[in-house]
């Protein structure tokens, strides 16, 4: 059940990101200066951590989405659902570690 709860929560998180993303990107049609000003406010450590959280949510949602497809369409998917969840978590860690090293060194690297 918790993989399903995680999938729901990350799905809602991604939805709110997309909502804001559509709004701030459409600003470029209103005025490029306003767009630059808004995007400029994102360059701070809090948003940097937010980006890290967003990527974590997307990576989990993506891998778990593949797991759900496997459960639905692969004959043995039901039998191996628990192992598939472990695979999702391992892949999530594998993807997140290098990303976090790079992301956090940029956020806190003092560029």
């Amino acid at each position, binding site marked *: 059940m918790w993989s399903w709860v995680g999938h729901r929560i990350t799905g809602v998180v991604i939805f709110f990101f997309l909502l804001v993303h559509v709004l701030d990107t459409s600003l470029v049609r209103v005025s490029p200066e306003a767009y630059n000003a808004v995007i400029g406010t994102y360059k701070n450590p809090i948003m940097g951590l937010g980006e890290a959280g967003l990527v974590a949510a997307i990576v989990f949602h993506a891998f778990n989405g593949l797991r759900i497809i496997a459960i639905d369409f692969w004959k043995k998917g039901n039998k191996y*659902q628990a192992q598939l969840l472990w695979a999702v978590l391992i892949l999530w860690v594998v993807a997140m570690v290098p990303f976090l090293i790079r992301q956090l060194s940029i956020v806190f690297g003092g560029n």
Partner: protein
Amino acid sequence: MSPIETAETAPEPASKIELPAHVGGGGEIPTFNITLRVRRYNPEISEDFSWEDYELTMYGTDRVLDALHKIKWEHDGSLSFRRSCAHGVCGSDAMRINGRNRLACKTLLKDLDTKKPITVEAIKGLPVEKDLIVDMEPFFQSYREIMPFLINKGHEPTRERLQSAEERARFDDTTKCILCAACTSSCPVFWTDGQYFGPAAIVNAHRFIFDSRDDAGDMRLEILNDKEGVWRCRTTFNCTEACPRGIQVTQAISEVKQAILSRRV
């Protein structure tokens, strides 16, 4: 010789011979103290639920049902719960024990953490009537809707309807259902959407859809090919974990989904 004389003269059967204490029996059964925390509800007194603790001394061979009996028979006769066979077949005493749906008659106390209070509450998603008793009507309503009986269009045969071992094995898993509602009341989709057929109804539809002797598979697939049918299943696997009979419930639901997609049984 009359039967009475036979009984007097014949040697005692082996099972009735007194054995010395060190042979056979495992000695005294260990006892331990437990706290059973039961979620009580009595609409005649109050609309609110309340947790009540009972301190009990139980044997190592006792089940949660025995603890409930002890409360009802020796401590508080007002405690209400359902049970019938008390041996895991009738499906009457499904309840939420330590946050998990199980049969009280199949859950040994020694398998639970007896250091902490053991919580017992009614299964979720169905209206509670009193203490551990819920109204099962919505559950059986869904069950009836999938037509859980053999429908055969041909003439009634004069002998039994034959079936190969492979054909029988196709739906063997779903014949084990005892309609205890542990699966349906563990489903988070059912908790929030009481209209959902629920795992138990789909399991029992599966039992007939994949039965080679049955002719109404298409009708059942049509019933379940609904907004509130199999497509409500989000593969959370709670039902499979809750099933006291070990039925692979999510697997069965997946097979019904596949049959609807491919229209092939």
